[in-house]
C-alpha cells in the first residue's frame, strides 16, 4: 500500500497511504473543539498532526504507531468519523444544558444557610442516639472510669 489512495465513506473523505490516513475536516460542520476531542482519543495509538488545509478546513493526519493493514486503517477512519460526531453531540448537549448547570451551581452556593439534606439526616440520627442512650456510650470512657470519680475495684479493695 505504498501509493496513496483516496477513499470515500459516505461524505467523509480520507486518504490512505503507508501506515497513515489523512482527512480534511470542515470546521463549519465539526467545530475545532470537536476535532481536538476526537483526535486526542487516538493519541495513544497514533501519531496525530493537525494542519490548516484552508480557511475553516483542518487537515488531520493519523499515523499508526504499529504496522496496520488497509482494513485496519479504514476502521480507524470510521472510528474517527464516529468520534467526531460524538464530540459534536457532547458539545451541543453541553451548550444547551449550560444554563441548567449554572442554575444548580448558583443554587448550591447561595443556599448555604440551609443545612444540606445529608447534614439534616446526620443531625437527626445524632439526636435520636443521644436521646436513647441508657449506657451513656456517648460519654468518653476516661470520664466514666476516672479513678477520682469512681469507686475502687474489688481487686483494689482486697489490697
Amino acid at each position, binding site marked *: 500500500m505504498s501509493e496513496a489512495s483516496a477513499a470515500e465513506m459516505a461524505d467523509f473523505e480520507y486518504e490512505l497511504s503507508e501506515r497513515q490516513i489523512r482527512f480534511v475536516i470542515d470546521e463549519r460542520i465539526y467545530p*475545532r473543539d470537536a476535532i481536538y476531542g476526537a483526535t*486526542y482519543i487516538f*493519541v495513544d495509538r497514533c*501519531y496525530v*498532526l493537525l*494542519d490548516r488545509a484552508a480557511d475553516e478546513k*483542518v487537515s488531520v493526519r493519523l499515523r499508526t504507531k504499529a504496522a496496520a493493514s488497509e482494513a485496519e486503517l479504514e476502521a480507524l477512519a470510521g472510528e474517527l468519523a464516529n468520534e467526531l460526531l460524538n464530540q459534536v453531540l457532547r458539545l451541543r448537549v453541553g451548550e444547551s444544558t449550560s444554563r441548567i448547570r449554572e442554575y444548580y451551581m448558583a443554587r448550591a452556593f447561595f443556599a448555604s444557610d440551609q443545612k444540606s439534606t445529608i447534614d439534616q439526616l446526620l443531625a437527626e440520627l445524632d439526636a435520636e442516639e443521644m436521646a436513647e442512650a441508657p449506657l451513656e456510650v456517648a460519654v468518653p470512657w476516661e470520664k466514666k472510669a476516672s479513678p477520682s470519680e469512681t469507686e475502687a475495684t474489688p481487686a483494689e479493695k482486697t489490697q
Partner: protein
Amino acid sequence: MSEQQVRFHRSLYATEAIDEAVRAFADLATLKVLSNAEDVIVVIEHAHESVRDVIADELANFALSETVARTREARS
C-alpha cells in the same frame, strides 16, 4: 546529520503547548524553534539514536495533548 522539522499552525496549536513540548524533549535532541506569521516550526537535530525515528511524531502528539488540555482548562 539528519534534520527533521515539525510545523505547527498557530491557529491549531497553542504556543505555550509547543514551548512545553520543546522543554520536555530538550534532553533527547537539539531543538530550535523558528516562527513565521502562520506557523511555529520546530527543527530537530542531533536526536538521540534510540528516539530518532519517533521524536518528531512524539513531539507533535505532546503539543496536541498540551493544546487540548489548555483549551479545556480555559473553557472550564
